């Protein structure tokens, strides 16, 4: 009880707000790190995921590789890459990108994969090329799942950048690493609260985006059961979700 009070007082203390190691600066750094991580991860994972979903090839490899990436212990990867790259943003950035790839990849290929076969056949029947099918049909229809993947990656990345402050970096993790050896628990708790708050806000933003990007046509005729009847394999997410 007391600790919580002290933590919130710590956050509200104007002395902790400004300056190069204040809350605003750390928050800004954390958001910046998260953004570049997501941009890099999207640039890598989205094309691969779309290709897999569109062609139906390489799915097994993608599942296995992204499963492997998921199991890497981030703290260990940060330390190890730090020894290769030296101190700086490179090592933790690489570790965080590795962490963000699997959900984005999974969102992309399962999103495209889940597009109704009939819809694609219809698109081809009216004379669309493969690229047009991907760009005008599959991508818009898959967008909610793709954004969902990025959303999930974003949460993990925000949470895990905290850990990377084991190396000399900014970000909200600084509050935890700096306070722990001094047993300054209010500051540690304050740091944790800020990370949680940032994660919640980011998640809220993505939830909104996810709603906005659903194509109008899909919204108009949305009957989710229709998908279940198709013979095509579905994304693990949508298949699992319906079960009790």
């Amino acid at each position: 009880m007391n600790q919580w009070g002290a933590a919130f007082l710590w956050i509200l203390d104007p002395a902790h707000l400004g300056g190069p190691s204040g809350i605003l600066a750390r928050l800004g750094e954390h958001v910046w790190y998260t953004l570049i991580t997501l941009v890099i991860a999207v640039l890598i994972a989205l094309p691969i995921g779309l290709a897999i979903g569109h062609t139906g090839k390489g799915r097994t490899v993608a599942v296995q590789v992204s499963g492997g990436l998921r199991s890497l212990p981030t703290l260990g990867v940060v330390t190890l890459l730090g020894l290769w790259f030296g101190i700086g943003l490179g090592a933790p950035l690489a570790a965080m990108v590795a962490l963000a790839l699997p959900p984005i990849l999974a969102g992309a290929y399962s999103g495209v994969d889940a597009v109704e076969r009939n819809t694609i056949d219809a698109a081809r029947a009216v004379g669309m090329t493969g690229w047009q099918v991907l760009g005008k049909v599959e991508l818009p229809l898959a967008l909610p799942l793709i954004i969902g993947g990025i959303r999930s990656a974003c949460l993990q990345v925000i949470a895990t950048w905290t850990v990377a402050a084991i190396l000399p970096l900014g970000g909200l993790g600084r509050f935890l690493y700096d306070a722990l050896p001094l047993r300054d628990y209010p500051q540690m708790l304050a740091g944790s609260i800020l990370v949680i708050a940032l994660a919640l806000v980011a998640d809220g933003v993505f939830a909104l985006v996810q709603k906005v990007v659903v194509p109008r046509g899909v919204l108009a005729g949305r009957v989710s059961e229709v998908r279940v009847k198709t013979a095509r394999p579905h994304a693990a997410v949508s298949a699992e979700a319906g079960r009790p």
Partner: protein
Amino acid sequence: MMKRKRETSMSIKKRGLIAAGILAVGALALSACSSGNPLDSNDSGSGSGSGSNGAVIVGSAAFPENEIIAQIYTQALQANGVKTSIKPNIGQRDAYLAALKDGSIDLVPEYSGNLLQYYDKDATASSSDDVYAGLSDALPKGFEVLDQSKAEDKDSYNVTQAFSQKYNVKSLADLKTVSEPLKVGANPEFAQRPYGIPGLKSVYGVTATLLPISDSGGPNTVKALVDGQVQLADIYTTTPAIKQNNFVTLADPEHLIVAQNVVPLINKKKASERVTQVLNTVQAALTTNDLIEMNIKSSGDAKESAEQIAKEWLASKNLFD
């Protein structure tokens, strides 16, 4: 239905109780054992007689270097006809000092500064001799430290050889003449600790900034110093990386960093003339460099056992004929 459910939960509870009972009995038996330990009481002669009279039991903290020193003490005493056994890897200071107090060990290798501050929180002594002198007052009754060794395991400021030559820096006092801005790679608490950034300023008049690396002078700190991202790095004096990278450990003429000489902390009852003489001979021969070499053997590719490393050290020093 309800009833049956309750019965099941009752039987689970009962089983839990029985398990707890068994555990409790076991714990009692164990604690009975330990209180019946002949080595545990103040006068070892009155015990059940197991454990030969006057045998010295050497304990150690739970890290390799301390275990190696404990092995050296043990083997040196054994080689000189003193009955000795070893209980390595007891834990942190709280744990092994408690073991010393309750008599389950008689002797443990310690580090003078930390030992003094454990018993005297307000101690301000920082040079080797002051700390050693302070220890004799601070130690609890019935215990004493034998001679302190030159070997020390403490925080230290290190620079690369190139930096040392470029600015002719061999001591913290020389840093004032360095023209480039100074960054120190160390744990985050270094920003506040008296031996850290504030002490550097107040004792040596040197302004430096901290690059916080939370690995206690480990590989990332070493890498930062090698890469030139920091000019100074806080590394424990017995870390092999200092030698392996030819780092220069800066002298500390004003004793900014509290001394941590290796000292044998012993139960006075076991500190016979023979034991004292043997241990002090070992103490006189042990150096910080020896500790580094032994840590290399322990942590490197060889991964030799503490017992083997101690044996090799004793053989190389040839202290006892």
